[in-house]
């Protein structure tokens, strides 16, 4: 099993309030799965995705990646897993606006423990950009790109380290139908190559494109 969660809970606590975001979540993600997570706003979808992607830690429960317990992992090891195992796609693309397209695409490679030659890195980035149709924009700043182009840059960045899993948090949320279709097509293609995708979405159209659908409500998995 690639990822395994057992009775995961997450509570956000502040001085004035206590919010239970996730409660007793158990989930298993195998190799070559396409999981769609749906549910109303505030039900804990993004929190679940953040815990899966090691961006945040659970308050309780056990989370294992390739049979290794995450709770015992060092910060460095977690950072390595974020870098090598996962690719991220977010609703607003999470790109560095003032930097160039090529630098954005290459960003995960800067933190990779594998040493690449600069030429190899650039060739790989150019290859991905070319297949996404943004090879002419490589030296442009992200802030000058259209929404569709940004989405492609984000996708190239997610793929640059050849991850095994893509975590997508409402990736089509700010895209028009044409760009959304294109993105879903790319994700399906990534899945076909033997990788896994976990996608959070509100769009019912995409409910059936995955191999599994998870519906969440009030911090629980409904079914």
């Amino acid at each position: 099993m690639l990822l395994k969660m057992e009775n995961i809970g997450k509570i956000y606590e502040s001085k004035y309030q206590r919010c239970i975001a996730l409660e007793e979540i158990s989930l298993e993600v195998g190799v070559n799965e396409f999981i769609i997570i749906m549910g109303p706003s505030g039900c804990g979808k993004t929190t679940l995705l953040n815990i899966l992607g090691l961006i945040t830690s659970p308050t309780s429960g056990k989370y294992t990646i390739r049979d290794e317990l995450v709770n015992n992992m060092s910060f460095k090891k977690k950072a390595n897993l974020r870098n090598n195992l996962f690719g991220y796609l977010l609703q607003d693309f999470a790109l560095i606006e003032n930097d160039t397209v090529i630098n954005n695409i290459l960003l995960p490679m800067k933190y990779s423990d594998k040493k690449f030659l600069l030429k190899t890195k650039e060739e790989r980035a150019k290859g991905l950009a070319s297949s996404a149709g943004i090879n002419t924009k490589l030296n442009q700043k992200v802030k000058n790109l259209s929404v569709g182009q940004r989405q492609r840059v984000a996708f190239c960045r997610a793929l640059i380290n050849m991850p095994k899993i893509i975590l997508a948090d409402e990736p089509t949320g700010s895209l028009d139908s044409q760009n959304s279709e294109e993105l879903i097509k790319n994700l399906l293609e990534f899945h076909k190559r033997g990788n896994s995708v976990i996608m959070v979405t509100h769009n019912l159209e995409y409910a059936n494109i995955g191999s599994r659908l998870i519906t969440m409500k009030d911090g629980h998995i409904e079914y």
Partner: protein
Amino acid sequence: MKQFICALKDCRHRIIINILLSIQIFIMSIMISGITYQSYISFKNYSYLYKWNKDKDSVVFDVYINTQKPGSFEKSIYALQEVLSGGEYSSGFSFFIEDDNIYLFGNWQNINEFSTIPFLNINENEKKLDRNIDTILAGQSIYSTKDKNIYLSSSENLMENQHLINTKNFVQIVSNLNLFSPPEETVDSFVNQINENTIFLTIIPKKLEIKIDKMISDFCILIPPICFLFLTIIGVLCILDGTYKKKSREYAIHYVVGASESDILMRMLFLFNIISLPGVILTILTYNMGKFETIVFLQGLCIYAILFICSFIPSLIHFFKNTNKATFLRGD
């Protein structure tokens, strides 16, 4: 290295502000170094002198120089000779420093202990050797600030070799003059002779105890530089806080794609150093015209530590207290 480059990029839009802040830190450090260094050296010497000569009722002199009235000091040299090495009363010492050498004057017969003289740390054998010298003084001495060794290589009477004494050295001798339990009339006579014969110089005698008390109150002049330091701390704090907030989304993106907590922390630390270190380093390098002084280095280190504790740590705590890694990706 990559975090250093990122930190450089973080502050490239604030180059002017950073340069101005470095200048502010530089001026502040120079002010603090200048005042504290001079005051510290004088205070240390006088305190030492007082410690060993409590019962001797020492007299020192405040010296005022009038550059508008140039004149010679030759006539006054005899008055100095009288109190230092000749005459009925001669119990005191003085010195001047030139080219890392200390030239020491005094009548050793009337000075019982070498330890009565600040900065002088001669071992027992040397003490015996020099006890035989009737009138000291002289010596081309090798002076090292580190271990405070003085080597008296000869015993010629410098006061008679007047060609070695120029106006600058003469002022030093008078400024550094310490008389042990002098009779009142000797002091009056000496002061009158110096003030009358040396028109560019006015001296006022002062009891050592009073002088030290005044020096303590003189440390009040440190208040403006301390206010300046406070303003600098606020400046650095505001710049760091603003940059960290502005860059929080970028930090989050780096974190998500593989940066660890220590990478982010390192980047923040580099940013702090890029803002605060140039001013401090510039002070250490330029103060005393490039000569390395331990005390200036320590002062620079203190200023850096104060900025680190009062600016960097609060802005870091503020950043991490108000920023949740899971949510700071969402907002700009």
